[in-house]
Each structure stands twice: as structure tokens, then as C-alpha cells.
């Protein structure tokens, strides 16, 4: 594809994201396209201390640091893995980390990074374990000003 300067790839290591990754790397042009890797820490984590009120501040801090540590380790692992694969195939790589609503983060990043295309994975089939934090496809399609490419589901 001509003038494909950058592809925004929303990727968090799920099965769908791996399909999106494969599609993005297949679509990208080596030496020309930059892979912008968007990794969103979903905003539901903001409410994950719920309405706990019995614990001391130190216990809540310990929990907060623990969860942050888990998420940080996960993010680092995802970034390292995709960066390595991009390097192998000769694509420039740029990580973008965001915390918030996944759809909103993707729309904002697409504008900020002035990407040529957005690639996402197929919606997770119902019943498959995973966070309930899905991309709002309709909102995405309405909000994006660049082509949106969605990977096909894996054939079963």
C-alpha cells in the first residue's frame, strides 16, 4: 500500500490482538511504515479498590502498588515482544501507553500520532475469558478519519 507511513495497532496480547498484529505486520511496508503500538490500561482499574473503607491507608497503598506492579510488568512484556518482532521485520516502532476508555484512547491517539491506518483485532467471542473492556466498534467507526482495518476471526 502506497504512503502507508504509520499504522496504529491496538494490542494487549489477547488472541484477537495477535491476529491484529499479524494483519498489521502483513499490511505494513518495511522501511516505510512505522508501527504505533497503543497499549491501554483500561479505566476500570480506577474503581478497583471499590468501596473498601475498613483497611488502613498502608494496606490500600500496598494493594495499589501491587496492582500497578502487575500491570506495569504486563505492559513491559507486551511492549518488548512487539518491539522485537517489528525490529526483526524492519519496521519502525513507537509505543504509546494510555490509561482510560480503550475506544476513546484509540481515537485520541489516532489524531495525535497522525496515523495512516488503524488495525484492531476482532471482538472477543462471548464466553471467552478476559476483561470486560471492549472496543466500541460503532463509536470507533464514526470517530476515525483514517481507514480502520479489523482482523478476521481465527477459523475454528
Amino acid at each position, binding site marked *: 500500500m502506497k504512503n502507508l507511513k504509520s499504522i496504529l495497532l491496538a494490542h494487549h496480547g489477547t488472541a484477537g490482538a495477535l491476529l491484529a498484529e499479524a494483519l498489521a505486520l502483513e499490511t505494513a511496508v518495511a522501511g516505510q511504515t512505522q508501527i504505533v503500538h497503543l497499549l491501554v490500561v483500561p479505566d476500570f482499574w480506577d*474503581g478497583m479498590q*471499590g*468501596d473498601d473503607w*475498613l483497611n*488502613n491507608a498502608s494496606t490500600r497503598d*500496598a*494493594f495499589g502498588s501491587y*496492582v500497578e506492579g502487575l500491570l506495569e510488568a504486563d505492559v513491559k512484556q507486551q511492549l518488548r515482544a512487539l518491539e522485537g518482532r517489528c525490529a526483526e521485520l524492519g519496521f519502525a516502532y513507537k509505543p504509546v501507553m494510555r490509561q482510560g476508555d480503550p475506544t476513546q484512547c484509540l481515537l485520541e491517539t489516532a489524531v495525535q500520532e497522525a496515523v495512516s491506518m488503524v488495525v484492531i483485532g476482532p471482538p472477543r467471542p462471548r464466553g471467552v475469558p478476559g476483561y470486560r473492556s471492549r472496543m466500541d466498534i460503532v463509536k470507533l467507526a464514526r470517530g476515525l478519519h483514517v481507514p480502520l482495518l479489523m482482523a478476521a476471526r481465527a477459523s475454528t
Partner: protein
Amino acid sequence: MVYTIKSSALLIIGIIMLAWAGLNNSGTIDGMQSYLLASDYKDHAKVMKKYEAQLKAATDKAAVAGEPAPEMKMPASKFDQSKATQSKMSNFFGGAFVLIGLFTLVWKPKPGNLDYFVSVVPGIAYILLIAFIVRWGLDPIFGNLGKAAEGTLGWNFAKIFNLNYVVLGIVIGIIAVNVFRIPAWAANGVRTARFFLKTGVILLGTLYSAAELAQLGGLSVVMIGAFVLGSVGMVLFMGKRMGTPNSMTAVLSSGMGVCGVSATVAAAPVVQAKAEEIAYTIGTILIWGVGCMFVFPTIGHLLNMGPVQFGAWAGTGILNSAQVAGAALAFDPRSIETLKVAEIFNITRVLFLPVIVLWLAAWYVKHEEGAQKVNLTQVLVAKFPVFVLGFIAMFALSSTGVFAPAGHYKGKYFSSSEIKEDKLLKSDETSALQGELDRLRGAEGSQALSKYLTENHVTLGKRNVTSDDVYTALTELAANKKIMTREEDSVLESLAKMDGLDETAKEAIGTAHKAAYHTSKSIKEYRNWIAWLFAFGLIGLGMQITGKALKQAGGAPLVIGGVVGTAKAIGSLIVVMLFVKEFI
């Protein structure tokens, strides 16, 4: 880092509160208040009618005597008092918020303590404004609508669905965070809700008598002990059968067994739970807790449960501690007797927490290869709920008689010397008592009295009450027109239950008993403040419950949580209905 966000919101909230106080003081909104404070307004109408009659009589008397019409001040009715309370609170907080709001707008904040303390005020004002609207507005509106619809529906929907200030406050908190989002200027202050709830629990310590605390404490230790251990064991068993990871089983069992989200927060780092396990568990507990908070009070009313029964059931059966307080207040929003019971259960749960976390840590280390060992002392110290010490300190202070005379019961105490002149027995009542005294001294009467005292094992402390005790108590009461000692009160209360006693004498004993017991002003104030602190805290906690967190409920935790949560709720209901009586 600077926390204070420059915004005129605090100033506006302050002005709204001051305006409400002004409208109340001027009487401009008396028409609306007569609807909102309907029962107080009935009292107002009575007081006004009485006052007008007295004024007319005094004016007529003065006219006959050729004197100028007398000036009489109308006594304050409950309606006036309620309006005055609203004005006082609105003036106090509104004034403070206006001053701090103006200060925030002109001040250049620098990092430090002052910046932090100023930054929490707008959030506090935001919650307090909602609390005012809910308690003074929505609560009475729903109450009135419920009563009005009773004729058509045949039942009071506001009562059945517990649409009172507590439930409405939590619901508005949940709506505020999920629909409108918490404004940035309020975010810091909203987090202080926990502090106010803990302050409420500490103040609750003033309301217990030693006997109450001992009985409730014993009951809660037995029930919480059995159901905590039972549900922790059940989750561990189900987790093993369903093949869930050890870390997930451990974190879920703490949440299901002890005190919901608080236990999950405490246990997750210790049992090295994974991110998605934490999300599933907290989502499941929150969704279960919020559901229970609405369902439990309705079932409680349908089963006609009393405060002790409902407090014990909610305190054991509801997974999440915040919703225990919410359900207790939703069930019984006017007095806080149910909350008193439920909070003892909450305190017992939180005292169990360090022990259960240790147990689960040991279980996890045993079952998981490569698991890090935990420092037992560190866990015990870190997880110890410090605010419980405050509760115990307030209870100890209350027991020494700082807030009410020592030996008070639910804030009420006996004092003969404080009985006002108008509360003394009238001559017809003392005559009736004298008549009964003479009758009971007669051959037939003394025989009947002696038989009654023996058959009913009437005791005073450790000794049996004799006929002479009764004669002395009756003589003293008839002579002094009031009960002189607590012992005599106890003897007379027993006598009043005797068959064949003259009705007027019986009523006189009841009147004298009522007159001798006084409510401690400070305890009354504490009760009022506790209700406000819990309302404030629960609105704030409602603002921490996000739909996105609730949506994470799922996977094995939802299945296990559903089974264990249901078993715990039904099991504790059966135990409460069978064995817990209203004995406190």
C-alpha cells in the same frame, strides 16, 4: 505536586447552602417545607392552635381587667426546630465553604499540607450538598409519595423498597460517578468518605452499654466465626473442584468469607493474585454487595425482623462491609439501633481479617510452588484496623460517664433529681397509689402480692424482692410524687405487671418511670452526627462503585461467589430466625 484545583464550584455550593438557610429563616419556603416536613408541620399546627387559644384567653382576661393585651411568644414547634436545624447547618457549612471558596480563587497554592487540606474541601462540599438534598428533599418526597400511593397500590412502595436517605444517597453516588463522572475539583475530597465512615464507627462506641457490647460481641464472634470459616472453606473446596488457580481461590475466599472488597484488597498482594483474578473477584463482590443492600432490607421488613435480628443477618450475610452499613441504615434509617448491631459484626469481621489473611497466606505457600513466604508479624500489624481502637476508647469513655451518667442504657439514664415539676404525679395518681398500697397491705392483698413475687421470681440484683420492698417503693412514690431510686423503679416496674392492680395506679407507675429516665443530650447529638457521618460516608462510597468495575464480575469467581454468597445469606438468615432473639 499541587492538589488544589481552582474552581468556583466550592463558592457556588457555599452560596446555595447560605441561600437555603436564608429562605428557611425568612419563612419564604414554609409552604414547601410544610410538605417536606409533613409530620413536624402537624405538630406546628397543634402548637399554633394551642398558642392562639391561650393568647385569646389571656387577651380576654386582660380586657376584663382593663389591662393592655399581654405579649406572648409562640413556643417553638417541631417544625420550627427542624427548620432551625437546617438553617444552622446550612449557615455553618455554607459560610465555611464560601470563605474557603474565595480563598481558593485568590490563593496561589504551593505543594504542602495546606494545599492538600484545601484540595479536599470541594469534594466534601459536593457530597454534603448531595446529602442535604437527599435527606431534606428526596427522602421526605419519596416518603410522602409512598404514603399517597398506599391508597391506590395497597402498599407503601417507599417503605417496601426502602427509598430513604441512605439508599437514595448511595444510588445518587453511584449515578454521579457512572453517568456524570466525579468532577476533577471534587475527586480528592470524595476519597475522604472512608475517613468519615470510620469516624462514625468510632462515635458509635459512645452508644453501647457494657452489657450490650458483651452480648452483641459474643453473638457476632460465634456467627462471624462460623460463617467466615464456613465460606472460606467452601470457596477453597469449590476452587479445588473447579480447578481454579490457587491465587484466585485464595483471594476469592478472603473476599467471600470476611469483608468483601476490603478483604480482597488486604489479601491480594499476600497471596500474589493476578490482575484478572483481582478484577473478577472485586467485580463479583461489588455486584453481589450492591444487590444485597437492596434485597436484604426488603426481606427484613417482610419477615418482620427486629434490629438485632436484621443487624446480625446483614452483618453476617452481606459480603461487603460498606453494604452492611448501608443495608442496616436502609432497614432502620430513623433510629440507629440496627446500625449499632451491624457495626459490631463489621468490627468483628475486620478483626478476623488479619487472621484469615495469615491463614490464606500459609495455605497459598503450602499449595503453590515458589510462593514467597510472608512475615507474620508484619501482616498482623499492617492489617490491624486502627480505628477499632478509637471505637473501644469511645466506649470506655462513655462507660465512665463522660457523655451520659455511667450505667446509661442506649443513652438513657435514671435521675430522680432531674425530674421537672410538671412531670411529678398528680393528686389523683398519688391517691390511686395510696389506695393500692392500703389494699396490698391488707390480708388478701399481701397474700396475693407475696404469691406474685414468689411465682414470678422477682429479684433485685441477686436477692428476692419482698413485700416490704414493694410497700416502701409505693410509699415513697406516693409521698414524693416521683421515683426516688433505680431500685424502687425496678420493684415498681415488676409490680405494674401484677394482675388486678388498679389501672390508674399502673399508669401512674408508668408515668413516673418515664419521667425518671432522661436522654443524654450529648448522646442524642452523637446519634444525630453518626447518622450524618454514615449518610455522608455512604454517598461517598457510592461514588467509588463504578459500572466498569461491576462489569468485571465473571468467570469462576462469579460461579463460586454466587453459590457461596447465596449459601451464606440463606444460612445466616435461618440461624438468625431460629436462634437470635431481640434480647439486647
